[in-house]
């Protein structure tokens, strides 16, 4: 065999996995539950403007090329690798009037780019539920049968349906049948076109659904954070639900970003409150990336800093960064480097 081909084969077969994150001198493997693939053209104009406004000048003037690169599977994998993150979850969403649409098919195609490192959360349109709901549920059922689709993503504020509306509880039953945890956006959202009233954002309005669906795991995304006023928001409500219901999990994505929490105070307060409540083993790490180049790695570092300030032990940090994902989704935990 020619030396150059042999070298290439050896290099591909022996490629180093991402190194992990260093916490108090120990390198820990990381799974980022919460990432958004997408198609820029499927994002509403108002949301395109919202996102482009966050790009450094002059990239916001012509954001499509940069956005497409960041939102593509290859771009997301690159961001994960640069951040030392081993695997990541990709979210579908059907919210045409707010954040746009990333279909189940798009997510599955992205997962197939690297099924060893990527997994997906399916979603469904909830508009005209009384007429279109059954068909939407059938499509979700088929999507959850696909290899690599491990959960369900819902965002009541973005999709504009109430958390306490029993008509939608069939989604939770279907998720339980597939052993697929349900990720839910909680807290007011800054995106244009979202519903910001309490029944769409306050996790307390989920309690009835949580109690009625004990076989469904509910992941309370963003910990009820108030992104509009950039304050802690309904964190205590999330902690209260997790304390009283074993099928409730907590995910601290996005609330600690540079734009939402410049000094890191909100994320630190959130992680400290969770630890004080004895709920570290319910926390699953997610970033809500990729957003912009470098965001995924930056958010991981900000989370590490928040855990350090909140005096998380190495084992507690390991649980947050990968252990809870493995336990909740029945996946093999990543080995420590």
């Amino acid at each position, binding site marked *: 065999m020619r030396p150059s081909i042999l070298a290439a084969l050896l290099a591909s077969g022996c490629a180093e996995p991402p190194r992990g994150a260093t916490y108090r001198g120990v390198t820990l493997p990381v799974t980022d539950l919460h990432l958004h693939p997408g198609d820029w053209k499927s994002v509403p104009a108002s949301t395109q*403007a919202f996102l482009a406004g966050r790009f*450094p*000048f*002059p*990239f916001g003037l012509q954001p499509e090329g940069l956005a497409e690169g960041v939102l593509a599977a290859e771009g997301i994998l690159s961001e994960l690798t640069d951040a030392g993150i081993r695997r990541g979850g990709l979210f579908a969403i059907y919210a045409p009037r707010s954040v746009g649409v990333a279909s189940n098919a798009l997510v599955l195609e992205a997962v197939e780019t690297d099924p060893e490192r990527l997994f997906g959360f399916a979603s469904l349109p909830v508009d005209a539920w009384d007429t279109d709901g059954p068909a939407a549920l059938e499509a979700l059922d088929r999507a959850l049968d696909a290899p690599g689709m491990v959960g369900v993503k819902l965002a009541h504020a973005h999709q504009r349906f109430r958390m306490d509306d029993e008509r939608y509880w069939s989604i939770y039953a279907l998720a339980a049948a597939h052993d697929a945890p349900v990720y839910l956006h909680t807290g007011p959202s800054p995106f244009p076109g979202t519903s910001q009233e309490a029944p769409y954002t306050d996790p307390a309005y989920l309690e009835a659904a949580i109690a009625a669906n004990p076989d469904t795991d509910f992941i309370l995304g963003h910990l009820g954070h108030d992104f509009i006023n950039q304050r802690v928001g309904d964190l205590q409500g999330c902690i209260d639900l997790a304390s009283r219901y074993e099928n409730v999990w907590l995910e601290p994505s996005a609330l600690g970003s540079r734009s939402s929490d410049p000094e890191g105070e909100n994320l630190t307060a959130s992680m400290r409150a969770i630890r004080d409540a004895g709920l570290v083993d319910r926390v699953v790490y997610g970033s809500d990336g990729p957003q912009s180049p470098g965001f995924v790695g930056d958010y991981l570092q900000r989370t590490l800093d928040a855990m350090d300030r909140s005096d998380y032990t190495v084992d507690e940090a390991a649980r947050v960064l990968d252990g809870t994902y493995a336990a909740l989704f029945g996946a093999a935990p990543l080995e420590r480097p």
Partner: protein
Amino acid sequence: MSLLALWMSVAVAAERPAHPTAANLLGGSEVGHWDAAVSAGFPWLSARAQVGLPGGWTPLVEVQSALATRWQPSAGVGLRWVDRRWRVTGEALAGWLFQTGVLARKGPSAELRIKAGRAVGVLQPYAHAGTRHTLLWTKTTVDTVAGDEVSWQAGHEWTLTGGLGLGIAAGPSWGLDLGLDLPWVGVPTVSIPGVHLGAQFGGGR
């Protein structure tokens, strides 16, 4: 004419206030002289023309564009405050912002800037800084069952302008410059520095 003599004549010309490189980059045209400049780079293109009046006053017009998506035409006046070994010039401009694309916006703008530098033989290092304010307004139309609901919102964009570079008097009546563009557009949004290559010409009556 030998090369040495040519270089010396250009160096002498460069150190005269009337050289177009000094007039454009350091500010202020000589009385009765016109000067112009163009530059191209990433992300900025620009073109500028000015004429000298008595008392150190220099009316000017300029247009700047970033990626042919953001356009900033302006007109104003400059005044030389210091004109010895160093030249320091102040400029005041009023204009308009046109920005298309995803971040479309428009509105009147006003800018104050200061320029400084000196001629060292044919070389003319320079720097400039300023503050630019643009009044924006946004029209939102919401389709409702009862008809369209139109609302207007006012806004403000603040840009800190700035840059530095090196001009070279390449000939008696023309020159080049290589510059770093350092505006902070739409504070506090992060701005990436730009670079440009420029040409200056004129100096005649």
